[in-house]
């Protein structure tokens, strides 16, 4: 990587690369790829990993208060999965030649984004249902598409992660369904939670296609296969039926079924709110980032200890090997 390839080579490589994309071939870490492709993937994958890690916080907020042992265990397992997904995607991102620690530093410095949905607070137990059902549900719609992404390591990570997300979604919906058929207080808790999470979950798919700056390039290179609006519509169609099945109400007076297209059409999404949260002024942006920074700062001495101990061990092992070699008489046979 010390010399730049000649320009002519580059354009030939680009043509070959785009031909591979067009033929639906999978791009692997050692393959040549345009720097823009690499940069877009690093941006997307690291945002995804950050989202998994920050996403542990709003649900972590309710582990200690889960109302039954079974729910507590499911929630713990789910949050543990999210940490695992974060780790897995960070490793996937490292195949593109970046270091996980640099990516984490970007998050802590406020330079990297993560899913805005996690900047909303979790205010009741029902939010554990709403997050699993709607937030993981939206993530599945998105990730099912990403499982066909042109970059092999990302696509394979998505296949694996989607399996676990399906379990997350199922448990979330089950929480909501149980609350909805429970006491009147429980049903009210479920509806109130749905009211708060409905619109932010629709915003998870990003701006309308016409306002999405990255979409064209991502789709041209097969990183994304469907547009934000297509994915959002798919999610709405799936979810409205699920809301009705548990006798809750979608908090949208303009919601209507369009016979011609077979789509559920919603009222306008509040994009001012979306951009406000993206730009850092959501209800929990500073808490979430603050919690990550705090954990990182409080953990510094632990990480330093691990490094110091590993270095000591390496030194001891080296010295032991040297001693052994020096102590081994020539012609002993053991060294032959």
């Amino acid at each position: 990587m010390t010399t730049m390839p000649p320009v002519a080579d580059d354009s030939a490589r680009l043509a070959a690369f785009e031909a591979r994309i067009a033929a639906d071939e999978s791009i692997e870490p050692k393959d040549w790829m345009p720097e823009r492709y690499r940069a877009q993937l690093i941006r997307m994958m690291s945002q995804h990993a950050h989202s998994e890690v920050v996403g542990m916080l709003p649900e972590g907020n309710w582990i200690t208060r889960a109302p039954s042992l079974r729910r507590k265990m499911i929630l713990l397992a789910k949050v543990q999965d999210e940490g695992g997904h974060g780790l897995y995607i960070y490793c996937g991102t490292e195949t593109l030649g970046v270091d996980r620690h640099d990516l984490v530093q970007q998050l802590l410095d406020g330079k990297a984004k993560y899913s805005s949905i996690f900047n909303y607070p979790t205010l009741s137990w029902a939010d554990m249902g709403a997050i699993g059902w709607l937030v993981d549900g939206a993530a599945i719609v998105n990730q099912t598409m990403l499982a066909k992404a042109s970059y092999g390591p990302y696509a394979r990570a998505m296949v694996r992660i989607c399996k676990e997300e399906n379990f997350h979604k199922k448990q979330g919906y089950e929480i909501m369904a149980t609350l909805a058929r429970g006491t009147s207080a429980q049903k009210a808790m479920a509806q109130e939670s749905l009211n708060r999470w409905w619109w932010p979950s629709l915003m998870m798919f990003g701006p309308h296609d016409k306002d999405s700056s990255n979409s064209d390039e991502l789709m041209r290179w097969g990183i994304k296969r469907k547009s934000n609006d297509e994915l959002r519509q798919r999610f709405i169609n799936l979810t409205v039926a699920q809301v009705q099945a548990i006798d809750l109400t979608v908090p949208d007076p303009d919601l209507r079924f369009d016979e011609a297209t077979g789509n559920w059409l919603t009222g306008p999404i509040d994009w001012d709110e979306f951009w406000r949260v993206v730009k850092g002024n959501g209800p929990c942006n500073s808490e979430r980032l603050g919690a990550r920074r705090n954990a990182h700062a409080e953990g510094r001495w632990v990480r330093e200890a691990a490094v110091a101990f590993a270095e000591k061990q390496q030194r001891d092992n080296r010295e032991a090997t040297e001693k052994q070699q020096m102590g081994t008489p020539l012609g002993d046979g053991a060294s032959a």
Partner: protein
Amino acid sequence: MSSPHPALVPALLRIADDRLILGHRTSEWCGHAPILEEDIALANIALDLIGQANLVLQYAGTVEGAGRDEDTLAFFREAIEFRNALLCELPKGDFGVTIVRHFFHGLYSVLQWDALTRSTDQTLSGIAAKALKESRYHVRHAGEWVIRLGDGTEESHRRAQEAVDALWPYTGELFMQPADEAELVGAGVATDVSLLEPSWRTQVDEVMRRATLRVPDGVWMQRGGRDGRHTEHLGHLLAEMQIVARSHPGAQW
């Protein structure tokens, strides 16, 4: 046994409550650990411990036969009815306190579960067999960290030693055999925990040596948890743990 021994339920609660309360404390780390790998490991340990508590509480409810299930026992008992050792309820502290506590309790747990795999009570021995595997992993994880922290940097050594000093007075209670369990021990149902101490101490000393840490001498050992006399911390822990369940009595979740 036609009717269960009256000491069996308290004995089971002592086993279950240790895991439930320590699992709760461990779960407080979720999302706040020093590195992502430890977030995952601590969540996994918390999950194992609460899972162990769940099984033992289920069994305690069945043995008691008063219609209390595992959730009633977890969420609708007062602090004075909990039977965990005081060690388990102390605040989570820094990562050093968390790790040293996991090491001390995990080692006790391995010895206790191992003994209980030979319990004449088949339900209990079945639970013990499963839990033993998990606890072996917990103590390996914690023991490796105790050595790393003790023999890491000056700061990590100081913090690890402070954790050992702070927690040591709460280790004695683990090995104080409750008087009401004598007949259960005689029948091979329960374990005499006082017999586990020598082996525990040998293994602690070995890890402390490798970690360049020292165990304090001549310390008064705190006690009370096994009889329901707790520290001030447990009430706050339970207030948090039980709030949702108690706000909706009789509700299904």
